[in-house]
């Protein structure tokens, strides 16, 4: 099983995970407004969280959860507002921020092995054609080990189960030495055991100092997995610890009212 020990997955390299650093890096989103295919997908999103947190993005279909993840990942142009990571504005992309797409949007027939996908995480270091250095190989090895993929590393990705696919993505993010993990509906389509295992893994990742942000549609499991939540429906409706924002009134407002009633949260 993955993460059954209380040990951290990865040794604490600089700018990697910061559980031992004694300070917390902040992800701050200010008055974010994003268009997606001519439509305004997000308006007035503001929140601030920091590494060590496990943040759920909650809202109905079309609320802009995926759009928010993509905006933080630098995949969508921002109309107005700002995104700061560790005090500096996020430009186009950052090695420290990993994006894990929805599994349904990935071509699993693509001829590539598990190790091949994981080693893509070393592109920022290795560039176009440089051979992988011992440091790169070690990072890939650590990521495979942490996600319990060593036995599967030479397998084609088409031959993986849903839970294994998700672990491959996580391993790529670890090989990237990412600090922030943005996951789009990581739990959807997984069987019960894989869900439990993934929840365990995400919590362990936050414990070693990473920031996990995930869109999530299964309201029953939010309390078990996440410690912070952002309720949104194009506008931000509420942000805070799960215990505080996961109230019937706020959920009602998120899922059953027209979007105009959403008020901006600071």
């Amino acid at each position, binding site marked *: 099983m993955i993460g059954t020990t209380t040990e951290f997955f990865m040794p604490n390299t600089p700018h990697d995970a910061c559980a031992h650093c004694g300070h917390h890096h902040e992800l701050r989103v200010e008055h974010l407004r994003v268009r997606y295919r001519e439509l305004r997908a997000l308006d007035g999103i503001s929140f601030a969280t920091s590494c060590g947190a496990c943040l759920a993005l909650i809202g109905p279909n079309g609320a802009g959860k995926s759009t928010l993840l*993509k905006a933080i*990942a630098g995949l969508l142009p921002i109309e107005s507002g700002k995104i700061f990571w560790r005090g500096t504005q996020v430009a*186009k*992309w950052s090695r420290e921020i990993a994006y894990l*797409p929805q599994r349904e949007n*990935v071509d699993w027939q*693509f*001829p590539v092995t598990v190790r*091949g996908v994981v080693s*893509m995480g070393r592109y920022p270091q290795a560039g176009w054609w440089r051979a992988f250095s011992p440091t790169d190989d070690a990072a890939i090895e650590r990521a495979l080990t942490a996600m319990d993929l060593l036995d599967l590393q030479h397998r084609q990705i088409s031959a993986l189960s849903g839970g294994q696919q998700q672990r491959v993505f996580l391993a790529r993010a670890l090989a990237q030495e990412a600090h922030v993990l943005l996951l789009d509906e990581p739990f959807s389509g997984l069987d019960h055991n894989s869900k439990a295992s993934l929840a365990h893994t995400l919590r362990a990742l936050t414990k070693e100092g990473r920031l996990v942000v995930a869109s999530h549609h299964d309201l029953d499991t939010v309390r078990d997995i996440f410690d912070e939540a952002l309720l949104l429906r194009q506008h931000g409706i509420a942000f805070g610890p799960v215990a505080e924002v996961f109230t019937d009134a706020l959920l009602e407002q998120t899922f059953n009212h027209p979007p105009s009633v959403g008020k901006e949260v600071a």
Partner: protein
Amino acid sequence: MIDWLIEPFQHPFNQRAMLAALLIGFTNGYASAFVVLKKSALKVGSLSHALLPGIAVAILLAGLHDWSVFLGALFAALLIGLGSLAVSRGSRLDQDSSLAILYTAAFSGGIILLRRLGVTQQMDEWLFGNIMGLRDADLWTNFWISFGALGLLTAMHRPLLMTLFDSEVATTLGVPVRALNYLLFAVLIVVLISSLQAVGCMLALGLLVTPAATVYLLTDSTNALFWGGSLLGGVASATAVLIGWHLNLEQGPVIVLVLGAVFLLSFIFSPKYGLLRTTAAKRQTH
């Protein structure tokens, strides 16, 4: 049997044709892996048809020279490719539809123009190829195109594969996705032009898809896809030149036909993804 292999080589135009077939087949085979992985065969097919009107306009403006044919074909393919992008962005049409409209219109214009220019005999060559008519200079042009295309494709192998697998994730890792896509298409256009003399613009697509598509049914290895595709492209093209010479058939269509035959074999008999295997597996599950 040995005579069958050796005899054709006593003619210098056969030697050139064989060399050219190996070279063009190899380069196209390598590039075909990208076309198959990008699932963009139809787009590339459209661009190959766009070469012809470019040649026509170039002859009209500058007369019939090697360089005018090359440049005309290059500019026409670029123009129609980028034009379709502009049309799809500026309207509600998707890019495939825009591309279809632009290239068929341009192709029709090209046919009419070439007939008016009185180069009907060469037109046949540009449509279906004439590998026996190659001169030493053409061989050198092909060599440098192959050299450059293979060099570029190899150099951008890693980021290109990441882009083809998942362009969004590639972007978040700092891969210049858009630039690579343009670069890939530019290289594919040049490769198409290099195969013009062998198989012509009507058949160029066959050479630029079939080799890797065939290997794709045999293996999951990406490396095998590229190098297996190259090898298959080169060997099949050279064999086709021999067959064509012995049976007195046009080499261009024979090249594509041989590739098609090999593909059919792998489609049916591939131990991994062949028809026999998959139907047997299906029957077992019932």
